[in-house]
Each structure stands twice: as structure tokens, then as C-alpha cells.
């Protein structure tokens, strides 16, 4: 592999990692606080992409208005779902929550078909991001550079909100002791609703940001959800920096793995998860679940 190729692959691995991180971080946030494994997260991602398509292409609004619309719409959907249905399931078995989110996947897939039909769509790059930057020995696409900036920005923003704001402190406290938090006057159910809303909005943003790079088709939710799970699991469930690390591992393994061992590209993410779980059963930065 020449230096140019190596640089390019490393860059692409990073770009992939960042796009995946944006999506996976929402899944991870929801798991960390609510302990709910949200299978519908991939579907939220797909809705995010489709909504961006409708707003930015059909209605002709600027791309970033589409991204915002995706975030708001997904947040709204998630909020309603949480308040009406999900909140009744926190005390039930994990299996029931799993089935519930799976039911969401099925219902939303048909809803998407009714709203958008079965055509494939694409969204244009935002102005000024459709080209590449020439560094002499290598060309880097602008939009992917943009993703490489947005990913860490979102990570830092999440870190800032979770670590440095009062609301973030409340969220962290909610992962540690729900009951005590309620005794201190915090409306914990609303914190849960907010976390589910934000986590889902992140999936929407992830889909919106992916939209210019890929074709939008029915079924685009299916692989993304597995990949997000893999990232969250190998990073350590509930750990934000774990997900960041997991996304990086995923991005580089998939990028370099596909180049070096194209025959294995279909199962590379699973092999990665297999190796990590056998060596570190609770993920790279995870801790053993207590009570076992």
C-alpha cells in the first residue's frame, strides 16, 4: 500500500467512523440511560434521510434546513412514542422492550412505503461540498472532510452537554440512581423522554448527513442497525467514548479490511465484534454488568 493509498484509506476509515458514530451515539445514549435496546434506531436513521430528501429536494429548502427538519421530526416521533407507549415498558423484561422496538421497525417500514413509495432517491451535496480538496499527493472529498469535523463536534457537544451542563449532570445521575434523583425533585420520566427524544434525533441527523453520499432506498435501515449495535457493543454499552472508540475501530477495520480482504467484507463487522467480545466480554471501555 502506497503512502497515498494508506492516507486515503485512513481518512475514509475516519469518515466512515464519524458518520457511524453520530448514529450509534444516539443508540448508546438511549441504552445508557433507559437501558432500552432500540431496534428502531436504524428506522429512525432511514426516516432522517427520507425527511431530508423531502425537505431539501422536493420542497427545495437548503440542505441544512433538511438536516434540522430530520432532527426535529425524529425527536417529535420519538417523544410521542415514548410518552404513549415505551414508558409503560421500563419495568418489564428486556425482551418486551426489544419486541416493542421491533414492532416499531415493522410499522415504520410500512409507513415509509406509504409516504415515500418504493422509488430510490438521492439528495444533492450542499453547495460547495461536492468537490474534493487537493493536497498534492492525495485528494480528499470535501463532504467527507465535513463529516470528519461534524463527528468530533457532536462528540464534543455531547461531552459538553453531558459533562458540563446541569441537564447533563441530571442525565448522568439518572443512570446511577433513578430513585434518589426523583427524591431530589427531578421529574425522571421527563428526563427519560428527553433522552429518548435526543437519541432518536441523533439517528435522524445521522441519516440526514448520510443522505448526500448514498442512495435512499427501502431497507436501508437493515444493515445500519446491526452495525450500530456492533459499535455500541464493542465500545461498551452506555459509554459515550466507548462508542467513539468502537466507531473508530469499526471504520478502520471495515475500510482496511475491505481493501485487504475483500472476500470477508460481508462479515468483517461481525468478526470484529466476535474478537472483541471474546477478548473483552464487556467491550473496550465497558464494565461488567453488576448483579451477575
Amino acid at each position, binding site marked *: 500500500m*502506497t503512502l*497515498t*493509498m494508506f492516507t*486515503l*484509506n485512513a481518512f*475514509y476509515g475516519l*469518515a*466512515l467512523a464519524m458518520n457511524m458514530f453520530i448514529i450509534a451515539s444516539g443508540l448508546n445514549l438511549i441504552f445508557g440511560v433507559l437501558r432500552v435496546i432500540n431496534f428502531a434506531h436504524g428506522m429512525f436513521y432511514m426516516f432522517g434521510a427520507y425527511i431530508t430528501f423531502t425537505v431539501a429536494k422536493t420542497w427545495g429548502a437548503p440542505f441544512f434546513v433538511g438536516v434540522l427538519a430530520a432532527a426535529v421530526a425524529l425527536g417529535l416521533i420519538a417523544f410521542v412514542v415514548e410518552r404513549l407507549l415505551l414508558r409503560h415498558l421500563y419495568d418489564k423484561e428486556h425482551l418486551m422492550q426489544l419486541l416493542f422496538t421491533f414492532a416499531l421497525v415493522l410499522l415504520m*417500514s*410500512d409507513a415509509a*412505503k406509504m409516504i415515500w*413509495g*418504493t*422509488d*430510490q*432517491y*438521492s439528495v*444533492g*451535496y450542499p453547495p460547495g461540498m*461536492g*468537490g*474534493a480538496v487537493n493536497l498534492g499527493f492525495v*485528494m480528499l*472529498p*470535501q*463532504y*467527507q472532510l465535513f463529516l470528519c469535523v461534524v463527528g468530533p463536534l457532536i462528540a464534543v457537544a455531547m461531552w459538553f452537554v453531558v459533562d458540563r451542563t446541569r441537564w447533563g449532570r441530571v442525565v448522568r445521575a439518572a443512570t446511577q440512581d433513578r430513585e434518589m434523583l426523583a427524591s431530589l425533585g427531578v421529574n425522571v420520566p421527563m428526563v427519560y423522554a428527553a433522552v429518548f427524544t435526543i437519541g432518536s434525533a441523533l439517528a435522524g441527523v445521522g441519516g440526514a448527513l*448520510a443522505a*448526500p*453520499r*448514498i*442512495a*435512499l*432506498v*427501502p*431497507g*436501508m435501515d*437493515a*444493515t445500519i442497525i446491526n452495525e450500530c449495535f456492533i459499535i455500541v457493543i464493542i465500545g461498551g454499552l452506555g459509554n459515550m467514548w466507548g462508542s467513539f472508540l468502537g466507531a473508530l475501530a469499526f471504520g478502520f477495520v*471495515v*475500510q482496511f479490511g*475491505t*481493501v485487504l480482504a*475483500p*472476500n470477508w*467484507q*460481508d462479515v468483517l463487522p461481525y468478526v470484529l465484534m466476535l474478537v472483541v467480545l471474546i477478548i473483552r466480554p464487556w467491550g473496550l471501555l465497558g464494565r461488567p454488568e453488576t448483579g451477575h
Partner: protein
Amino acid sequence: MKYSALLVAAGVLSAGTAFAQQAPIKIGAMYPLTGGGAVYGVPAMAGHQLAVEELNAKGGIMGRKIESIERDDKMNPSAASSTMKELITKDKADIIVGGLSSAVGLAMSEVSKQEKVVYISTIPKTIQMTTDKLHKYVFRTASNTDLEGDTMAMLAGKNKLGKICHLQLDYAYGNDLEAGILKALPKYAPDAKVVLTLKPKLGATDFNPFIPQVMAAGCDGVLSGLWGPHFVSWVKQAAPLGFFNKIKWISGGEIGSHEIAGELKAEYPDNVISNTYELWYTANDPSHAAFQAKLAKKLGTQETPQWAVLGYIGVMYTAAAMEKAKSTDPDKVAEALEGLTIGTPVGKLTIDAKTHQANIGQFWGPMVKKPDRAYRMMEPAEYIQPK
């Protein structure tokens, strides 16, 4: 005018009374209507329905009404196999048409062999269906990977590609198409050399591991089978690097269709030569305009998708074969299909008696910008039909 309208009405009326007397002919149709395959399955089913409506308006087949029984094949071979059995054993379908993916096509062919019911494969292209796994009851009205590969090799020669990068999806269709191209390449382009072969996975959305390799390989052109969303994603990721400035893209997988061009609009790249089954703006047959107008009306859009014609042809062949056999008996219909020639919106087609493969051609040509259109069109569009 009035007179002819009256005649048509009378015809319908008389046909209507005939319907009441005889049991309908049942055509089972299976296309993917949910999930990723629905992109193709839904328009194909629309074409299928159009044909059935049209035939019924004319009095059906042999004066018997057609009943179309439509099912989702779910792009899952074993589910499709069960559904097809159900169509045959419960609904007593006389014939089955449809399928999309190779695996589903082969699974349906297997059921057809077992149950001795004719299956007309309208989209799956896998070569095995009409070679190794050919049997009495399976027929194909779609193109196949050998025909497509042959044309692509011819185009490679015509465009004088010296160094070729080969890009196929890593699954049955891609592998078969690759074989088809390699078989034909020495014939058309004896000096051409394949310098790189890459196979992204089916369903891939990220082509970054492949794009730099192709660009670094120094080839004049790419021979590709990246269809639909794969092509769109490739374009999105490769175009910013100036990929299409230098490299000619000769592609199967029907990416010269309006569905793709109309969606990518200005982002559709230069230097692409591809194929499509049907073009709403070009015709090689007089009946085409009528077909296109009806389809446009049914779908409520002037610019129609290409897959509908395949669903349409499946039904037309069914009708012709039954009329010829004067029976719905599968053995007789199968015999009738062998060597049968019919007129279709894309011209006269003949099913080869030995291979059960129709000589369906495709429109091939470069995708060019048009001043009055927001999207690219194929021009000149050449209908290339296998001999």
C-alpha cells in the same frame, strides 16, 4: 368515431357474458413488494397489472377472463417457494410469472419443476436458470448475464478500451455477469486487458475502499454491473474526486434508465454508457407509444419506469402461449412457448426453443445532457437484440 366506440362497448359486453360462463385463467404473479427489492418489484407489478387489464378489456385469453393473483415474494427464496406452491396448490394458478433476485428465480424454477407448472422468469438474469438448471417448465423473458456480458464486451471493443477495471457486485448476478463479459471479451476486444477486478458487496453503501483503487489502477474504462442504489452511491462518492472525467463507465444493471437519471439529475456523471429495458422517450416499435401512454396514465406520471415492461411482457407471453396451445395445460403451454414469437412494446421477441431464453434486447447508449431537460437521456439509444 361514435360507431367504433359502440363496437368496443359491444365487444366488452359480449366478452362479459363469456366471462360469466367460463372459469377464469389464473396467473400467479410474484414480485418483491416490501423491503429493498420493492424499488423494482412495485413497478414490475404495475406493468403486470396493466397487461392483465388490457387483455381482459379485449376479452381475456381464449375468451376467458384473466384473474391475476399477486403476491409479495419478499426477496426470500424459501418464502417465495412456499408462496408459489400456495399459488399452485390452493389458488390453482395456471402459470406463474415474476421474480427479481437470482436466488428467488432459482427457487421458483425449482418449484415449477417439481409441480410441473410453467414459470416465466421476467427479471432474474442468472445464467444458470437457462443452462445448468434448465428444465421443461421454466422460461425467461428477461435478458441474461451472458447476453448482457456479450453486449458490454462489444461496447468495450467499440470504445477501444485498452486497460479495463472490472467492477461487479459480489453475488450471483455480479459473478455471472463477470463470466459473461470475460467469455465475450476476446471476441470484441482482443487487445483489452483487465488490470483490476473488484467486487463490492451486495447492498454496500460505502464504496470508499474501492474508488481509490480503481483510480490508481490507470484504466481507460470500467466494466460494471453496479445497479440501482449501488451505482448512485458510487457516483456520489466517486464524482467529487473527478472519477468520471478520466474513466469511461460501461455498465449493465440498467442504470441508463430514467429512474436513475431522473433521480440523480445534474449529479449524473459524464462518460457513462449503459442499458435499460425501456425508455419512455424512445421507441423501437410502434406499439411502444401506446404502451407508454397507458402506463403513464396508470402511474400518473409522464416519465415511466423501465421495469413495468418486463411485467407486461410476462403476461403477454402467457396469453400468446395459451392462445397458441389452445389450452392452459402446462405441458402444452410449455411446448407452445418454445420458439414462440410475439410483438411487444420493445419489438418482436422470440423464445429460443432449446434454451427457453427470449431474445430480448436492451437499449444501450451514452447518457448525455439535454438543454431542455433537468436530467440526462440516452442518446443515441440503440436497441441491441441478441441474434
